[in-house]
């Protein structure tokens, strides 16, 4: 039975020093749109990585990522890092809300992510990795949104339980329960996939 493990969370951002986040935020507030581009470029991987795994549609994920940053731009003045909030956590909270709004509007994924498509012409190891990635994506897609988001935030983005609790606006115990069930479900689905190979 395959075990779930993460070699490392997505690079940078989530662990960016608070002082650097604060300096970037201040620059955005003072400098306007020009400085905001720096913030976008720094955190686009984080937001994209979350949303792409949540909606599994490249075009939709890009649109939702843009919407996330636009909402952040509008609300820059309201974010207060002195209360201990992290910019990355704040952005992921907005991204989650954007994804929920899209789900309410019925914005369903239309195409599969290109990167997880299996290309028969690639070498065996790469092909195997892509097949595994596609299997994980399919398994994650079968989870409920509440389970999928905590799985992505914990296992891919590397957020702590407390940070996830902030993003999903739920108690830490609830987050732990959801994560535990999401892991169990993923193990079961991936075990089935391996058995079928």
């Amino acid at each position, binding site marked *: 039975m*395959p*075990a*779930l*493990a*993460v*070699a*490392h969370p997505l690079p940078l951002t989530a662990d960016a020093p608070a002082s650097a986040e604060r300096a970037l935020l201040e620059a955005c507030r003072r400098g*306007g*749109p020009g400085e*905001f*581009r720096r913030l*976008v*470029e720094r955190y*686009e*991987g984080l*937001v*994209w*990585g979350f949303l*792409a*795994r949540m909606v599994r549609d*490249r075009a939709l*994920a*890009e649109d939702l*990522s*843009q919407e996330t*940053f*636009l909402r952040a*731009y*509008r609300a820059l003045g309201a974010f207060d890092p002195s209360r201990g909030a992290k910019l990355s956590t704040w952005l992921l909270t907005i991204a989650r809300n954007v994804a929920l709004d899209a789900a309410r509007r019925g914005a369903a994924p239309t195409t599969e*992510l*290109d*990167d*997880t498509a299996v290309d028969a012409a690639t070498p065996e190891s790469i092909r195997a*990795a892509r097949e*595994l*990635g596609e299997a*994980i*994506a399919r398994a*994650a897609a079968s989870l409920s949104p509440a389970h999928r988001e905590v799985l992505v935030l914990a*296992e*891919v983005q590397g957020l702590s339980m407390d940070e996830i609790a902030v993003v999903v606006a739920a108690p830490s115990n609830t987050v732990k329960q959801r994560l535990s069930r999401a892991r169990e479900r993923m193990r079961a689905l*991936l075990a089935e996939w*391996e058995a079928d190979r």
Partner: protein
Amino acid sequence: MTRLDSWDVGPAPPTLADGVMARVERLERQRRARRALAAFAVAALASAATVVAAVTHGRGAPGGDVVATERMEIEIAPGVLAVMERAAHLVWRGREVSQDRGEVSYRVRAGAALELVTPTGQVRGGASTSRVLVEPASTYVLVRDGEVSVIGGAGRVALGAGRYARVSAASLTVDHDDVDGSVGRALGVAPRLVPSRAPVVEPAPPSVASARIAPPPHRAARAPAASSPAPVTPPSPTRRAPIVPPCFCSPMQAVCDCGGG
């Protein structure tokens, strides 16, 4: 071992940041347009309020309250221009003007009228040019052109061009009674360099002694101070000041030739 990082979604699309910035620019344009619209709406409302006030009061200029931080000119009513010196304070509404401190020159065009209230008196005039200096206990008036009425608790006097007067709570001193020159000095006028035809001081009309410009008691008690010239006792309506011959003065002369005087 199944590793979740195999769940690769690739890097963020290269167009993502450009797309965000395009939307941010669009948002900024909308904000600018909304701000411009709001500013336009405020200006339109202010204009409408001005028109409504003018129509409601039927007096042209709606009113204002200004403390001059430097020399400034304001048309406080149609045909009435006030040149305020620094620190002067004017409040006006229609033709009614109140000056409670500082120095202001008024130019009133033909057909217009000035109705000025100061803490110690009133100044009224048609086409004229006059200078009014308001101090805590006195109002000084110098007429440069036309005719102006100065009204105070002690009487009223019509001043022609070149005449001046001081009105305080209990006295009205015109130029020919300015024996110590204190009024002329306050206005920057040589006491003797004035036409000598004495203006007539008449009792103040009852309305002038109304509460609006009635002096507070402590001012009335202080008015006959030693430094001030003796207050003018309001003459009876039939009494006229003596007519003296005109003076002929030259700026180069130390004294004026005032005929028999």
